[in-house]
């Protein structure tokens, strides 16, 4: 495949990753969020496989498959079950001041491009132009955790951050060593389970998944 075309495709997929990140930032419905997360995983997986093909790094196929199975099928499935068990699938979360949040997201993207411009100039990789998008995805994930109040949204924000990191690894250095990636995948899986258990506890203790309730744990003077 022509390198130029690969670069184009890579940027195209990066654009979709960013788009899903923005989508998650303002999506109010739980199922919608999970679906967006699954889509983001799918774009990542395709991108990883493609980079692996171009760069001739065959272990990237394995991490692409891992991403596909974990982030497109398993984690969304777990979240799905969680939402049903906790009976929050009909809840509509109030997102305050959507335009403001979007503007902040855009500012973060610009900021990432500004940060990454010296790296992009030095790098010789095909995927160099998407590094800024990866960083922006991480930061938007963090922003999502800050602006949302629902516990399930928080974990999705966290997973989106991890997606961004994974994307950064593929675009900056053609992926991490396989051992590291396997470890990270396992961590994500365990984190999802632990979060699930915590949600049940939070739900039974506070009868709600609104993390603002946890302010009651603060020490009083």
């Amino acid at each position, binding site marked *: 495949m022509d390198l130029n075309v690969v670069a184009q495709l890579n940027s195209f997929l990066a654009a979709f990753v960013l788009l899903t990140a923005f989508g998650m930032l303002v999506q109010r419905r739980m199922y919608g969020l999970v679906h967006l997360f699954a889509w983001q995983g799918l774009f990542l997986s395709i991108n990883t496989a493609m980079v692996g093909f171009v760069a001739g790094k065959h272990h990237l196929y394995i991490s692409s498959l891992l991403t596909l199975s974990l982030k497109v099928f398993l984690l969304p499935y777990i979240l799905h079950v969680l939402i049903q068990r906790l009976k929050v699938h009909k809840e509509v979360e109030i997102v305050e001041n959507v335009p403001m949040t979007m503007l902040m997201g855009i500012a973060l993207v610009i*900021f990432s491009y*500004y*940060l990454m411009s*010296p790296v992009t100039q030095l790098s010789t990789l095909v995927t160099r132009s998407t590094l800024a998008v990866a960083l922006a995805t991480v*930061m938007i994930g*963090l*922003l999502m*955790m*800050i*602006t949302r*109040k629902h516990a399930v949204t*928080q974990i999705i924000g966290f997973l989106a951050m991890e997606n961004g990191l994974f994307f950064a690894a593929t675009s900056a250095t053609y992926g991490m060593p396989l051992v590291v990636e396997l470890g990270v995948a396992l961590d994500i899986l365990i984190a999802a389970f632990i979060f699930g258990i915590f949600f049940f506890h939070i739900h039974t203790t506070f009868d709600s998944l609104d*993390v*603002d309730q*946890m*302010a*009651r*744990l*603060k*020490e009083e*003077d």
Partner: protein
Amino acid sequence: MILSPINIISSSVLLLLLFVLVVPLLKSRQRLLINTSFMLSSLASLLGIIGGVWAVGGGITNKLILPIGLPDLPFHLRVDPLAGFFITVICLLSFFVSLYSIGYIKGYLGRRPVTSLVIFYCLFLAGMVMVVLADDALFFLISWEVMAAASYFLVMFEDERIENRRAAFLYIIVAHVGAIAILLSFGIMAGLATGFESFNGYTFDAMRQAEFPLKWATAAFLLAFFGFAAKAGVIPLHVWLPEAHPVAPSNVSALMSGVMLKTAIYGIVRVTFDLIGVFPWWWGAIVLIFGLISAVMGVLYALMQNDLKKLLAYSSVENIGIILIGIGLSMIFKPFNIPLLSALALIAGLYHAMNHAMFKGLLFMGAGSVLHATNERNMEEMGGLIHRMPWTAALFLIGCVSISALPPFNGFVSEWLTFQAFLLSPAMPSPFFKLLIPLGAALVALTGALAAACFVRAFGVTFLGHWRGAHMPRVHEADWFMRSGMILAALSCLLLGILPTFFIDWMDIIAQQLVGTKIGASSGVYGWLWLTPVARESASYSGMIVFLGILLVVVAVYFILHVKPGGIRRVPIWDCGFGKLDQRMQYSATSFSMPIRRIFGFLFNIREQVKLNPRGVHKAFPKRLNYYLRVRDRFWNWLFKPVIEFSFWVSRKVGLLQQGRIQAYLIYSFITIIVLLALSR
């Protein structure tokens, strides 16, 4: 060489440390534990005395490098005459106190287990000796902390009382602030000694050889002085002392006051004279001024106390002041190149350090016997104990006479030497000194007079007159172990007083090594009998002759009064025809100190109230008067309260960061990341 001072001293430390491991095995047999542990610690102290006396007497300097420590940073030990002197002082008092403890700690049998007390007592002794042995900053600080932590647990021993916990907490805070200052001071010296590339600057040898720029040397000195002053209880850092000493078991207060404070004096001497070596005169002026303040204020505060052990604690502040006066004078004379006077002042300070260890140890042991017998620390409730506790009373009296600097006991000798250093000082080239030297001499004289008043009061109110409290408890005399500890301390007070020439000749080598000349106290045709510090024409003192004179007078008076039959009659006290004298109509501790409270009242925070009780009765015919008096340390409000309030204020402000909302915490990290990224681009 197997047998050398350092081997003897380190084996005594090792003995103590190893014994600590055995203590838990003896846990279930408390009486056996007390007997063995204190016998063993007195044995270890004896070993220390032998090593210390030998090191000073022979002028021996030994070094030892231990293979333990951090990787590539082994522990260095060293014994030189200065260290040997302080080890002698520490071990001498701990020998007496260990004997005393065998009797004293048995008072706890059946009341509470003493295992922890024994463990920390041994660690405390070992820590003090290790501090003096240390020849590198690392080992010094570790030993310093062992000493501080062990004494913290000893102060905490009776931890069910809130005042003990408060005192121990205050003590550990002051000790740690001081330790940080000492650490920083060593850091400066080590950094300048070898630069920051190599770690070898942590040995004292490297610091000795380095030459420090004045600016950095001053910083190191000020930090070290601050740190050691906090430990020594120099005013205004003394507040922990009157809290911690009274609540600790009395044998521990004897050690803390008698010798633990001396390790701080050792630190000051070691850092200034030995490690830094060359210094300007005004460092000495700083030490002298703080010494003068501590001496005068310390004794004034002591006069106001009704708690016997608190009084002794404040008196320690005073004596530390007198020691620092000697050392400060020595530091002033040294840069002006007057080595003889410098040596004289240094010897005076060190001699007072040894004397204070002896008589303050004796007094705390005496106070411990009183506490042991009556369960009472408040002097206002005591009185007449001389009839029930003749031994303790006589020995406490010896301590009082010594500390009041009266001949023929030891306190007089060292204060007399301090005076000589003041009086013989030539006209100094600066007008500041023309003011400071006579003023200092006058203040030392005032201190001596006030100390005498203070201990007349302490002895008189406690042992003379009649019991002041409601019911006199069943008072018993101290047992033979306690008595033997006190008798030995009293004997050493007497010997140090009547034979000062021997001891000063013995320790003269320290002055030679630190300031370059001996004072040659016993030179001249009179030999050992006369103490002639500089020249026979200017000043001389013979403790022996004074002692014999006083002994003669006492014996003569005794024969005149007692040998003639009917010379003494015991009759009821004449009540001036007033009738119904009761035990409240005596001089009390409060009334004795009233004139001094009137004169120096502005130095204290005093609240005094007289209330008529019951109300409504005409003033001319009072039925009952309630007198309320509270005397407080002004320094607490001036210096410590603002610091405490400030730290609470800062904590509250920092507490505002804790919102309890996850989002807030995420925002903190988010903003941090953004700012760092933007800055590091």
